[in-house]
């Protein structure tokens, strides 16, 4: 195998490793954005945050909301729930950003996988 081909294959391996690590990281983040509350499970999203904020602005403190399985869940303290949801959102998104930057900056397979 000549040098150029060997380098091209090495680069292909690097790109594949980088893309699969990023995909796993995204799916892990999706999992961390699932929040259990009152027997239901909610996907913490910008949409949920906006909806809870709307309810508060409408003067509601309790409401029935559909969870990710489309089951109705009664939330008795909407402001408290919004706080919980936004805290989770920022914790998870900041962790993802850190991981994403580490992976994007890595220039070889060893550093993507943090192998010393």
């Amino acid at each position: 195998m000549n040098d150029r081909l060997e380098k091209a294959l090495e680069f292909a391996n690097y790109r594949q490793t980088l893309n699969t690590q990023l995909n796993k990281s995204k799916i892990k983040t999706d999992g961390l954005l699932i929040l259990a509350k009152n027997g239901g499970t909610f996907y913490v999203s910008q949409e949920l945050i906006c909806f809870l904020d709307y309810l508060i602005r409408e003067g509601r403190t309790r409401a029935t909301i559909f969870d990710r399985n489309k089951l109705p869940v009664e939330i008795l303290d909407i402001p408290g729930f919004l706080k919980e949801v936004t805290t989770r959102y920022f914790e998870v998104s900041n962790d993802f950003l850190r991981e994403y930057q580490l992976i994007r900056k890595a220039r070889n397979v060893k550093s993507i996988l943090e192998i010393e």
Partner: protein
Amino acid sequence: MSRGVLMYAHNNPEIDYFKIACANALMIKKNLQVPVTLVTDDGSVNWGKEALTEELVNQCFENIIIIKKNYKFKNEKNFNDTSFNNKSLQFYNCNHWEAYKLTPYDETLFIDCDYLIMSSALSNCWNSRNDIMINHKIYSPIDQVTPYSKNIDDMGIKLYWATVIYFRKSPLAKHLFYLVQHIQENYRYYKDLYYFSSGMFRNDHAFSIAIHMMNGFNEFESVVKELPIPGLLMSWDVNDIHSVDYNNLILYVEKPKVPGTYILSRIKNTDVHIMNKWAINRYADKLISLYKD
């Protein structure tokens, strides 16, 4: 309301499921902080106590339920240790329907012993309003897509993965497990009815059929709900383990359509189903020492 994890481990002549279950029980204790009950047989537990010491076994499990094996049950399975090594061995999995009556908990996470718990994601199950939760979405370490569903055959019904099942003591869960028993006892009939080619008994198939029946033989609205995870991470048996650390492992993942060539993949703080049992067996001692107090 009592909560805990239930696992099964029945050794065959080459694969030490008991040791894998011990390693995973310690991982569960660290990550989910719940008690673990093991369902096993005399031979496996005696071998385990001798190989690992009784003290360690007691540290791993709160309860050990010993059942009598049905030696008439024959279920040959091809076990791969990467694409280069393959062996046909007995796979004793005919008693998973008994989980409902054997579990000492009100809320049970019933998991395969080779589904390694490296995160607290499944803690979101506790206190759920759903009586049963089971996933149909999976993904593999080499995928570059979001988790996806499979069918039991090209033209078949949706495949549910019995790798992880959450259930609470309830009429719905009881009916599901009794249906699985009925399907297992009449497996040849259901195999023909649902057109799947493999003759080997798989709990994934039995649970998928039972769910299909409970849904009124349709797939539009399911009586069982999804677990609070995006999908099950599956490392197929053609992959191998490169190294393990605390909640962290690196896999050799075989490239699709290029047998024998691998890329490395790091799994961090994510639960993973390792289908290559020999690979876990090779690293079980290391896992035990990492997670043991």
